[in-house]
């Protein structure tokens, strides 16, 4: 039973969190919005003033923006494809009865705990390096010319690195969902003569659909902010061949000191992320009622 007094106490206990989050979200976001309509370059002090939609216009018509948008889609789409398909296969495998299951799980999950700068540098140097990397050694051993991954296929290489980091996350969530599947349902289907494939497509896959959606939405939110992997591997290059939206905003605001333009890009990134977030929130909200 909640009384009047405990209600008041509850409000008091929630308010610090609410106030802090409100400040954390509203103040900087409001400032970004304000800057995005200002002419504001740290290299040109004194040249301030309201510019209307100019910053948005320049940001959106900059050819770099389209490259960045395309790269962002390639990265997010590629990583989602690899992690969801790979995650379902791995979850099915880990759900089998195998010897040393605990150790296998631990090994598979490990990449998720590696900090982004470490995984990016390890892949860049120990694997992708065209002279000393493992892939170069393998290519040499079977007589192929070495391939400079990060220079010739930067987006593919970065997608691989990021997918390696997120595969464990997808696997873990899909495995958790798979283990909550009622085994009697599967046994009944088997007794009715359903083969392994129809059991997978008609029972397991529909059961996994919800978890897979959660994986896709959460990963998309995180993947849109991919930054460290690009910074330490290619710096967005060669040229802007591996510049994503997040990285473009970083370059514009902190390297070119164009606060106004960077802010406009930031607002565009926020709008894109919110489109994804709305779907995610709906799913989680439904769960809250149940």
């Amino acid at each position: 039973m909640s009384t009047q007094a405990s209600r008041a106490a509850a409000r008091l206990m929630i308010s610090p969190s609410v106030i802090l989050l409100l400040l954390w979200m509203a103040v900087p976001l409001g400032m970004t919005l304000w800057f995005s309509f200002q002419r504001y370059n740290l290299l040109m002090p004194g040249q301030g003033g309201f510019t209307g939609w100019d910053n948005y216009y320049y940001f959106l018509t900059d050819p770099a923006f389209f490259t960045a948008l395309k790269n962002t889609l390639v990265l997010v789409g590629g990583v989602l494809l690899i992690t969801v398909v790979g995650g379902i296969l791995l979850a099915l495998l880990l759900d089998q009865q195998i010897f040393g299951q605990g150790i296998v799980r631990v090994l598979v999950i490990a990449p998720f705990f590696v900090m982004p700068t470490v995984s990016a540098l390890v892949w860049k140097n120990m694997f992708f390096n065209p002279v000393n990397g493992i892939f170069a050694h393998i290519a040499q051993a079977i007589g192929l010319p070495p391939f400079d991954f990060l220079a010739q296929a930067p987006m593919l290489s970065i997608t691989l690195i990021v997918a390696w980091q997120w595969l464990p996350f997808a696997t873990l969530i899909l495995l958790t969902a798979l283990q909550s599947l009622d085994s009697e349902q599967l046994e009944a289907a088997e007794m009715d003569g359903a083969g392994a494939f129809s059991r997978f497509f008609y029972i397991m896959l529909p059961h996994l659909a919800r978890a897979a959606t959660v994986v896709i939405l959460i990963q998309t939110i995180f993947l849109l902010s991919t930054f460290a992997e690009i910074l330490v591997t290619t710096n967005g290059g060669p040229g802007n061949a591996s510049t994503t939206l997040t990285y473009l905003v970083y370059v514009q605001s902190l390297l070119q000191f164009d606060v106004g333009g960077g802010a406009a890009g930031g607002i565009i990134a926020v709008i894109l992320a919110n489109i994804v977030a709305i779907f995610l929130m709906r799913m989680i909200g439904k769960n809250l009622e149940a």
Partner: protein
Amino acid sequence: MARKVSTRRKAIMTAIAWVIAFLIFFPILWTIILSFKSEGDAIKSPLQVLTSHWSFESYFVVQERSDYFRHFWNSVVISLGSTLIALVIAIPAAWAMAFVPGKRTKDVLMWMLSTKMMPAVGVLVPIYLMFRDWGLLDTRIGLVAVLCLMNLPIVIWMLYTYFKEIPNDILEAARMDGATLSSEILYVLTPMAVPGIASTLLLNVILAWNEAFWTLNLTAAKAAPLTAFIAAYSSPEGLFYAKLSAASTLAIAPILILGWFSQKQLVRGLTFGAVK
């Protein structure tokens, strides 16, 4: 009941699973192996690497040249500090929402979650300028504050889902015995909530330890945690594979060990209770 599976099938599945697990883990394993090699051996072909001499030399060089432990300490202070402060702010809020839910509790929870959906780059410019003006750039205090606020929604959500599972009857019994609000929280709720609080702490320390957007953008040398320390290896001079490996191994080892304990909480915490 587990279904009976033939030994042959189990053996085949085991072999496939171990090979795939090994491949996924291989980059980490290789990093650990290279950290025990000399720089000259570290760039040789894989077979030559394995048969070459093993040594701890790289670890000493990393500490001596770049003061590894200072960055390690920065990481500890930033990740643990931000999480502990977030817990102090979040525990009362999660308690109130779980046990005294009002009409708008659900909306408040969803709104908190929505703050987590905002891409960091959207507020990079104002945060950077504020930090510059307030002298917070490259300070541990500044990073503690940012990471605390960034993880606060996850902390509240995780605690909320754990608190929700504590039966209300016990709290009512305590109230009937005349427990005040503060003693109810301190002596009844907290002991039952300790496992949930511990998992929340664990997962958020891991997230803060590996955070690499704000730590890279807001630090230079003084307050740089391990993420930024490792990033400095992206512009190498001469041979550096063994040193990079040693530094990387030291940076990921503590969190790898903590992470293996947090597998279950990971699913729950990162899906905001949508998958349990």
